[in-house]
């Protein structure tokens, strides 16, 4: 093999100094700005999780006061949902890869892209301010009347912080939609696009249509809290349950914002590490769109016991089962892709496999909560917590980690330590399951969520869960260190270390600022691995 040389000019050495980063219009640099911010918020949210699990080792509330505990789970939810999971893949991998995969020089609106990062940061700092000056204790769901009349915590700053950050999502989604519609390279038809782009498109549709609704809902909370308008106050004719409808109209599609990008990553990983076309490419592409559309129709399943009518509950239940089908089909397609593939066990593939297994379990437990008769028992218990963590952490975060590792050589030009990476992946998988599987059982046995103290008979399972959390925490720290280390000391990657098919692999690692020396003309399908692999390597 030829000695790998670093490309002389690339986006990382194209301008030095803080201005060249803070005023950049390069989507790749903006992706890194986002990467730094969301990693910060991830560790903040993770710190709260550690404190929560420490408290729950004993049945009595002996580590922190109940007020503090209520703020811990609230801030854990807010940080993780709004400042980590929702932006994670789209704002980092999406920003970096969408122009590269499409054969364009940048996104449609580079300045808007930079603005969206500043908006994200502004919202995040606002919310941190709310945290530092006393915290919020309403739960990330802000249910009324508690959040509007009873809570004495920093509800308005937190709500406004999330409101501001929402615009960052909207602008990112808008940018992706226009870019994918208008800036594909010659020959890159919709059905030659990599599946990651389909999932970015579907996610962007949700960004654009869903986020404004949470924005107005948070404004209504602030207005209610400040001016006592009465929208949610029964004494003035208002309805507290209306808030829940408005809130979940966004927050349910939001979970698809979190998982669709990870599914897109997994499609890329499975194709690359099986060196095969994804089985049923067209079906998988349409499944992404179907999930985005159906995802808007099921919000009422969060209100089965909340005062929704029996008939509304029935309708939302059946729709919730319908939205499970495209997800199940994707799982089957990925599994079928592995059949007769040439399968590498590199770290990104381990994360992809982890995603498929854990997302399957998470999705299957969704069948439980979609059954109204079961949901009555398990809603608002640890069963639901386990269900969504299997999807968000076992699914979305594993997808994110897999993508980060797969594209790390492209982003940084360096290879990370594969041995350490595999160890970390194993620790994460083990720690994750130990943390969250016991919670299914806890929930079925009746332990409610958001409980600072609990009956002693639940202790053993809680201890297991906390033990798992400590392992999981260690697991997440390890990649942070070896990835940082690789930036300086890792071996040079070359343009296509994985011998993968995709436009991003035809340019240098790291890519030049304008992405491609010449705009490519695409004449092949997304994952044409049938030919000798050399023909697509630069």
């Amino acid at each position: 093999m030829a000695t790998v040389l670093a490309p002389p000019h690339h986006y990382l050495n194209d301008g030095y100094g803080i201005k060249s980063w803070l005023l950049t219009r390069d989507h790749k640099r903006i992706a890194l700005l986002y990467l730094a911010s969301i990693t910060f918020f991830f560790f903040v949210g993770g710190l709260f999780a550690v404190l929560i699990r420490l408290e729950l080792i004993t049945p009595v509330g002996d580590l922190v006061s109940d007020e503090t505990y209520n703020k811990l789970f609230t801030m854990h939810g807010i940080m993780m949902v709004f400042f980590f999971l929702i932006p994670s893949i789209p704002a980092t991998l999406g920003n970096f890869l969408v122009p590269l995969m499409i054969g364009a020089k940048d996104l449609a609106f580079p300045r808007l892209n930079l603005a969206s990062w500043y908006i994200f940061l502004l919202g995040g700092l606002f919310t941190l301010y709310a945290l530092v000056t006393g915290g919020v204790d309403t739960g990330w769901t802000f249910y009324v009347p508690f959040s509007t009349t009873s809570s004495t915590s920093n509800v308005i700053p937190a709500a406004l912080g999330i409101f501001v950050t929402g615009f960052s999502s909207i602008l990112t989604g808008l940018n992706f939609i226009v870019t994918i519609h208008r800036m594909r390279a010659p020959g890159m038809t919709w059905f030659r696009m990599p599946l990651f782009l389909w999932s970015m498109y579907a996610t962007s549709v949700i960004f654009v249509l869903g986020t404004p609704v949470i924005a107005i809902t948070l404004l209504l909370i602030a207005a209610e809290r400040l001016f006592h308008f009465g929208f949610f106050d029964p004494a003035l004719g208002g309805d507290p349950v209306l808030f829940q409808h408005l809130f979940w109209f966004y927050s349910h599609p939001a979970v698809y914002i979190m998982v669709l990008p990870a599914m897109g990553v997994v499609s890329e990983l499975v194709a690359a590490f099986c060196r095969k076309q994804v089985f049923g490419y067209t079906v998988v592409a349409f499944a992404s769109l179907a999930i985005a559309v159906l995802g808007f129709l099921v919000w009422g399943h969060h209100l089965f016991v909340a005062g929704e009518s029996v008939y509304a509950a029935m309708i939302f239940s059946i729709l919730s089962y319908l939205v499970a089908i495209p997800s199940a089909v994707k799982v089957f397609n990925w599994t079928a892709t592995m059949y007769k593939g040439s399968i590498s066990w590199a770290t990104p593939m381990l994360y992809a496999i982890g995603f498929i297994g854990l997302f399957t379990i998470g999705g299957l437990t969704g069948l439980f909560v979609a059954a109204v008769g079961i949901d009555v028992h398990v809603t608002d218990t640890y069963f639901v917590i386990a269900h969504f963590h299997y999807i968000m952490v076992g699914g979305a975060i594993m997808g994110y980690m897999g993508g980060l590792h797969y594209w790390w050589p492209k982003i940084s030009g360096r290879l990370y330590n594969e041995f350490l990476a595999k160890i970390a992946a194993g620790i994460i998988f083990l720690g994750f399951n130990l943390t969250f599987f016991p919670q299914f059982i806890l929930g079925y046995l009746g332990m409610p969520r958001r409980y600072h103290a609990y009956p002693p008979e639940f202790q053993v399972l809680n201890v297991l869960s906390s033990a798992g959390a400590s392992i999981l925490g260690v697991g997440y720290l390890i990649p942070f260190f070896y990835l940082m280390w690789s930036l300086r000391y890792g071996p040079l990657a070359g343009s296509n270390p994985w011998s993968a098919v995709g436009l991003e692999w035809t340019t240098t690692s790291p890519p030049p600022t304008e992405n491609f020396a010449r705009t490519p003309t695409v004449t092949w399908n997304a994952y044409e691995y049938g030919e000798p692999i050399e023909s697509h390597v630069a």
Partner: protein
Amino acid sequence: MAGRVDALYFFLVAIAVFFSVLIAGLIVYFAVKYRRRSPTDVGQPVTGGTLLEIAWTVVPLMITMVIFVWGASVYFAMASPPSDTLNVYVVGKQWMWKFQHLDGQREINELHVPVGRNVKVIATSEDVIHSFFVPAFRMKADVIPGRYVNLWFNATKPGRYQLFCAEYCGTRHSGMTGAIVVMEPADYQAWLSGGAPEGSLASGGEKLFASLACNTCHRSDTQGRGPVLTGLFGKTVMLEGGGTVTADEAYIRESILMPSAKITAGFQPIMPTFQGLVTEDQLLQLVEYVKSLK
């Protein structure tokens, strides 16, 4: 009911285990069997498989529809209290449950009921949203300020059953727990005869009806400016401007707090609101009093 919930639950566990093992098994098997043998290997393209794709779309769809129907039927039963229930009121407030038996017995955080009887709990909140959750009965409903929610159960074995608040409601949310105490009929009777010093809910309501001057407009003859309330409960009421409503607990409560929301046909919208003038406890008494007027 718990039995029906568990049956569906364990059916779902079986399905979940089956599909998890199937997918995990296939993935591990393929990952080993098709592992890359040489650095330049590529996968073999696979064509066809349309029938397989249709199968793995249709079969899960059918399974989910079965689960939907089963789950819906269990829920429908939960949402349809029988007609012969022993009724109890509960008011949730930060951070306790206040039970009111019809004969005036009050309990805090503990509810005594006889075994083998259909019991209906009519719940509301005085402040924020709470949730009335008894895991052993597989029963839960959010308890919402401004409206009444019904839950019902039939306890089949005596004992103490954990009661939790399951909707986050503030500082002492995890302390808002209690118990449903299910007793043999004889023990229950003994407990009941402990009695209530203030008298039954309905008798308390009768006193309020007079002290709040309801009786000046709602007379027992038809000369009053308000509708006659005798025999009202359970009837269908014709409303001004068309439409009807069934006179249940929620209707009576709404009529006291928001009288202009539904005007009885043939009457003027002149009833003042009592919002802020009566507590939730007093509302229960008034509701029970109106129910008692036959």
